[in-house]
């Protein structure tokens, strides 16, 4: 079974803190993604990566950065957390592939609260 793990299920931080969210997948997937999920807004893509040290901006990258030093690990960084970044953060991974389903596998999420 594919497993995507996220470092914390719940996290509480203060405004202005630097926050690291870690994601690890164990299926040798090339692609990894960070989303935030908010009620009524669905899942919105923050950043994605299709290879080590490669990254692409998603739809809402402002206030976030990412790091991918190893294939299995993709980190989301909030340089200076703000209250409007309170959200559920979901990591996902998928294989590269032509044609094919290209299924995304999601982690359980990290619920971040910024006070």
């Amino acid at each position, binding site marked *: 079974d594919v497993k995507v793990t996220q470092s914390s299920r719940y996290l509480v931080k203060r405004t202005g803190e630097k926050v690291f969210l870690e994601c690890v997948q164990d299926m040798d997937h090339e692609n990894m993604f960070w989303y935030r999920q908010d009620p009524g807004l669905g899942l919105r*893509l923050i950043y*994605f990566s299709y290879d080590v040290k490669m990254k692409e901006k998603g*739809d809402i990258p402002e206030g976030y950065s990412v790091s991918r030093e190893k294939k299995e690990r993709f980190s989301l960084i909030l340089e200076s957390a703000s209250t409007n970044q309170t959200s559920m953060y979901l990591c996902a991974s998928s294989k590269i*592939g032509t044609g094919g*389903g*290209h299924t*995304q596998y*999601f982690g*359980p*999420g990290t619920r971040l609260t910024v006070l």
Partner: protein
Amino acid sequence: QQQVKQSPQSLIVQKGGISIINCAYENTAFDYFPWYQQFPGKGPALLIAIRPDVSEKKEGRFTISFNKSAKQFSLHIMDSQPGDSATYFCAAREGTSGTYKYIFGTGTRLKVLA
């Protein structure tokens, strides 16, 4: 600007009934349309998916209907069960091989009454 519009936002269905969730899109470059199911406290999981060259795909009680000309697709859950109570997301894929990304709808919270 919502590229994938999903409705309804919430849905209540009696056990044994049919649940229908609709999605519409604008970008004709989308080439793959999955549906995800999410239970409370869990991440979304792929339920069923369809390509735009197919008008219908069925897997058990779950069916996707796809109307390419109308740029709409829908999820039908036949014989809905209380265990189907979850949030459902439609999605659409864009990009090229290796750099695909997905655009998600806003989600539908389904409750199936026993």
